[in-house]
């Protein structure tokens, strides 16, 4: 694995690269048929499958369930988002109390390493496909916690992030904009962070184990 430098979050070489098989198109529904890694041909999609995937993605995008898990200060912005002033249910976004019933995880700010362990556990318990929205500068480059001894700085080293919303802290309007971007990405079949996570589980695990010293999670928990 590549050691990351927290001061250079723009350095994209920190990501592992996946090579899709020659002649195949990336496909939103790729991981659905199989539970886990190994089936090479699942990236190859005939026309009908693609049409079905488009319909499925439309349904998924129009009904997002956000896991009730607040980290950092940004969680305070989720209340106005859910209540009468901004009302996210207009877009079919509702809260879900358990990881099993949710498909969007909002990381709403700085993440202590202690919390990261729980976040990973919850993220892996969510059924696929699932998406991560990262809120605030703390998740992008550490923000004002950049020199803290127990928070992580770059979130996408530990879990795949589909949408970043910048700001300290972002207002609910920004969140709504982020959500509508996420919906467009899902409908277009481009929000494949969960698939990326499955493909590169080892890489993510290694990074996670570097910061979580008291590692006692099972190898995977879904």
């Amino acid at each position, binding site marked *: 694995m590549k050691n990351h430098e927290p001061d250079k979050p723009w350095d994209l070489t920190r990501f592992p690269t996946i090579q899709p098989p020659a002649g195949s198109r990336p496909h939103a529904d790729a991981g659905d048929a199989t539970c886990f890694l190994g089936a090479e041909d699942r990236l190859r999609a005939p026309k009908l499958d693609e049409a079905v995937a488009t319909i499925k993605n439309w349904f998924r995008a129009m*009904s997002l369930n956000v896991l009730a898990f607040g980290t950092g200060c940004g969680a305070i912005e989720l209340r106005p988002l859910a209540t*009468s002033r901004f*009302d996210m249910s207009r877009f079919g976004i509702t809260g879900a*109390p*358990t990881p*099993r*019933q949710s*498909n969007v995880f909002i990381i709403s700010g700085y993440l202590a390493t202690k919390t990261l362990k729980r976040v990973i556990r919850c993220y892996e318990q969510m*059924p696929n496909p699932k998406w991560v929205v990262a809120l605030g500068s703390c998740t992008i480059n550490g923000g004002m916690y950049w020199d803290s001894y127990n928070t992580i700085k770059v979130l996408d080293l530990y879990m795949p992030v589909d949408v970043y919303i910048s700001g300290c802290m972002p207002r609910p309007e920004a969140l709504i904009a982020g959500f509508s971007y996420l919906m467009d990405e899902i409908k277009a079949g481009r929000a494949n962070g969960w698939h990326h996570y499955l493909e590169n589980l080892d890489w993510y695990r290694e990074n996670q184990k570097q910061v979580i010293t008291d590692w006692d999670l099972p190898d995977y928990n879904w």
Partner: protein
Amino acid sequence: MDLASRIGWTLLSFFVALNYGFVINGIIRKVMARIQGRFGPPVWQPYIDLGKMAFQRNSISHGIMFWLGPVFRAVGGVGLYLLMPVVMGDPRLYAFTDMGDLLLMMYFMFFGSLGMALGAGEGGHPHSPIGISRGLSQMTAYELPFILAVVALVAQTRSFDVTAIMAAQQGGVLHWNLFANPLSSIAAFIALLGMNMYAPFNIVGAPTEIPVGPMTEYHNAYISFMMVGRSAFAIAKTVLFMNLFLGGAHSVIEAVVKIFAIYFWTVFVGAVFMRFRAEQSVRFFLRWPAALGVAGLALSLWR
């Protein structure tokens, strides 16, 4: 009517009832949102949710009973619906009324919750048994006023047959059991609040308290199946109340309006009340509604 066309009509009416249940769910979400000063999701949101849940992957199962829980629940709803005459005098909408009486119907009403309790118990999450114990104790409590009310109606008409009870209410609005036996009706309609589990009796799901109670480990396909079962059950239960207390319906339009009115009685009560604690809810049902049920029974025996 021969069996094939009977089955065909029953399937058709069940399909329509199911969709009506979904539309009602959408309207409920909209109404609740408007009461809270929000716009709320579109009315067709339950359909989108259903589709989405069917298209998400299922990650786990906890065993055979975990699978069967939602099935039992759906069977309770479907079984109840199949025994129910929906529109009076229209044999096409009588389903299989002649094959079961009120006792079987009441069995079906409680069968679903019991199956669900077994299934959810296998999920293993600590919130599940808490929700189940709350749900079953509340069920035992609201069953008392409801059964007392039903027994009063049976004593009044001297029949366990729903069609006989409906026939006894014909000839004007004042012949409905709602007015002919008001005490029992009030007891039963309060019991309906507990059955539909809106506030103040939403102690089973109890959002933010024991997040979703028995359903904690259920997800996606399980929930989409449960949504179907729940809409069927909600409509079937409401049709039973319509037949028992509101004189049944003479046309589909009348049935639609009455079902809407009965169902939204619980929704509007739910919109303005806070949640009871578990023991408050049980005590509530065992006091005034039960007393009303006994009084209604005495009234119908005395006449």
